[in-house]
């Protein structure tokens, strides 16, 4: 069950040959490198070629390929993997509306704008991969997208293609007060009703799948196609991770109960009160994408929100990621969240992992992003210093071997710091990721005029 059966062939063509950076290998030398899957390297070398990492290690061990362009970075620079944000709303994300509480058929894809300035600001914050989600105002608010923050012309340029050609993404769900409304309408008025509605829908999807299986391809016996049940079916089959918004400790337990009943893959999000049920979360083996905010409150279920949550989850042995929830936290402050977690007792390695590899695993993208490992995508950032310091700036962001953010570029600088122009859409890229198909379309358009 692909996302776009009819158009996937075209999309595959469109994304088949992005013009990667470096026909020549590029070697960055002289920086401190945090590969995340190993110990920090004091005097490290990173070599990328054709969008992939081809070597990473200590200066005395890495042999820079002949013909490589070598850039010796000034002393004090730090290289990290491109940051992975497991929960963001950049790009003008939208999901389901107020007409109902269950919108599995709604795609965030159909709302996103590749030129939205929030994407440039995320690049300025060092984010190279983001799970862009619909909001939490519904029990199921729609399908999320895992994006690579390339300098794209259209949103298709930012998609991550799975082996079957479909676009990588999850399914956004929520419980607690956000999807609850006054009774009488299509929304639940209580928590128990919310859980019952979700169970009911998942059972429908199970039965829908069973009918399809029984039909054995016989068109006469196939049920009428149902976009929503199809999507829940993808979650039930483990092909689509449920990204579950939950704050209060009992709501977290409800989410765990649903997962146990239906067996889907799940990541818990926000989890204001996860520190109260950290052992239960760890025991369930469910990864957690947490948020740290300047203050608690703002709604009842966030009253006990704490800086301590990531550290408590780490101590309990859970897999912990962090997220921006942009615009709740501006993407440019994403690394700061890791630092605040350290402030409250999280270990530094776990905090760095929480904005890279842990999140990559939550999106099922750990084979491609999240660490500086030979063979993975050449997604990395160059920092002016210690990743946790307020005085450090993201100087460069690279996606698949192409620099998408450069602090010395005045335009990029305005996205990094703000100011007039930072709210404007990005300039049209001159080259990047324009596919052969785009060129054909553009030429065709020109001919018709």
């Amino acid at each position, binding site marked *: 069950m692909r996302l776009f059966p009819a158009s996937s062939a075209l999309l595959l063509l469109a994304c088949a040959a992005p013009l990667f950076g470096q026909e020549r290998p590029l070697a960055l030398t002289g920086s401190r490198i945090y590969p995340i899957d190993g110990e920090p390297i004091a005097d490290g070398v990173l070599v990328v070629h054709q969008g992939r990492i081809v070597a990473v290690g200590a200066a005395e061990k890495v042999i820079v390929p002949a013909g490589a362009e070598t850039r010796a970075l000034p002393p004090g620079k730090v290289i990290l993997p491109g940051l992975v944000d497991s929960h963001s709303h950049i790009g003008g994300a939208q999901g389901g509306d107020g007409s109902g509480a269950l919108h599995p058929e709604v795609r965030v894809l159909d709302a996103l704008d590749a030129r939205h300035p929030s994407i440039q600001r995320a690049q300025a914050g060092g984010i190279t991969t983001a799970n862009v989600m619909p909001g939490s105002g519904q029990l199921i608010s729609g399908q999320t997208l895992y994006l690579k923050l390339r300098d794209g012309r259209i949103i298709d340029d930012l998609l991550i293609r799975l082996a079957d050609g479909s676009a990588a993404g999850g399914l956004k769900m929520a419980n607690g007060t956000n999807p609850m409304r006054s009774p009488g309408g299509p929304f639940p008025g209580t928590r128990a009703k919310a859980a019952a509605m979700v169970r009911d829908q998942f059972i429908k999807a199970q039965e829908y799948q069973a009918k399809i299986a029984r039909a054995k391809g016989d068109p006469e016996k196939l049920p009428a196609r149902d976009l929503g049940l199809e999507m829940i079916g993808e979650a039930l089959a483990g092909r689509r991770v449920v990204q579950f918004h939950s704050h209060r400790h009992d709501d977290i337990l409800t989410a765990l109960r649903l997962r146990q009943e239906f067996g889907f893959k799940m990541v818990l999000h926000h989890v204001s009160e996860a520190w109260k049920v950290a052992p239960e979360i760890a025991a369930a083996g469910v990864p957690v994408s947490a948020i740290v905010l300047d203050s608690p409150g703002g709604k009842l279920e966030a009253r006990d929100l704490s800086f301590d949550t990531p550290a408590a989850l780490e101590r309990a042995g859970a897999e912990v990621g962090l997220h921006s929830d942009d615009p709740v936290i501006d993407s440019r*402050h994403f690394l700061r969240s890791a630092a605040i977690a350290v402030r409250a007792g999280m270990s530094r390695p776990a905090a760095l992992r929480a904005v890279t590899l842990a999140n990559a695993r939550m999106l099922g993208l750990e084979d491609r992003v999240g660490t500086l490992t030979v063979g993975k995508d050449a997604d990395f950032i160059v920092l002016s210093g210690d990743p946790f310091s307020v005085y450090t700036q993201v100087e460069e962001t690279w996606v698949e071997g192409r620099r998408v953010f450069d602090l010395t570029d005045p335009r990029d600088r305005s996205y990094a710091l703000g100011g007039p122009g930072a*709210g404007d859409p990005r300039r049209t890229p001159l080259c990047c990721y324009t596919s052969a198909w785009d060129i054909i379309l553009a030429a065709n358009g020109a001919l018709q005029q």
Partner: protein
Amino acid sequence: MNRADRFALLLLLAPAAASAAMPLAIHAGVLYPVSGPPVREALILIRDSRITFVGPADDRMISADHQIIRAAVVTPGLIDARATVGLSGLLNQPHDQDMLERSAPVQPELRAIDAYNGGDPLVAWVRSLGVTTVNTGHSPGTLVSGQTMVVKTSGSTRDREVLRPAAFITAALGGAGLNRAEGKAPGTRAKAVALLRAELIKAQEYVRKRALTDETKHPARDLRLEALGRALDGSQRLLITAHKAPDILAALRLAKEFNLRIVLDGCADAPLVLEEIRAAGFPVILHPTMARAGDETENLAMDTPAKLAAAGISFAFQSGYESYVPKTRVVLFEAAVAAGRGLGFERALAGATLEAAKTLGVADRIGTVEVGKDADLALFDGDPFEYTTRVTATVINGELFRDGPR
């Protein structure tokens, strides 16, 4: 202290005697007094809520009754120059949201002190992050929303905790001051300014008539016009929130027309009109940069503090107002972002201490670590602005608060 301050202070319920805190001897690895250069291995002595000694560490200065506290870094208690904590409660439920009255567009008679809840958890929250004084009150959202008060974050409103019970009158130009409902005024920027000008002219007339020697010609007392009268004579300054450049210019135009001494608030577009702000000479309480950029604040920037400093404009940091999650910003974090984006450590610290105290008119009591000043301190285990540094304690009027470490 203005007339309104004095009047409101009389109304405060003061306990017969403030609880006597134990004298403190605070040993700082580094003290940033703000009034002068940093002092390594410094000693601060506190007795009866005041600072009695500041100097190099010397054990002979410490009396037997001093409680000895050690901290890696000590600064003056941080000052939040524009907040709504205590009025906009943590829970964000109708019963704890007192920061905005929408029944009329101009209500300068609404006093923060009649709504402030020092026991709200957000007051303790900002205290746990080094903030010892807030200028808190009504939020932007109507043209003239009310008054602010300058109060310590100890949680009570005993008179020594309240520095100024009626500090500023808060106004908002641009989107934050409009009423978008159909048929309501002010619905446009120009109408808002016209409305405010008309009110100020009414207040001028009111003040003139109330000063007539023939008391039979006095108009009946009017709290609203009295308050605006204080804005006119400068005893209770207007604090005008304006983000877009035209709104900042409109505020300056009003100040010129009525000869007002105003304080500018927000000013996301300040870099576009730096010269005009500098020439007017009014201080700026800069928007929280950690807040979401968008709409009116689309141009907010992390390096605006550095630009204001370079232009010689006095400014202070604020937490501002948040309508949702998180329910307040924190001045410590605001100053930190500015420090890391071109402003530098010492100027950022001044913006959260002495500069704020000057803007709020309370620099005689707080804002620096000097003998005779209120014993308000923030204690840290490292560079105060580093995200990984924790606040280990705060001292307010000589009383030690251990909310954290956080």
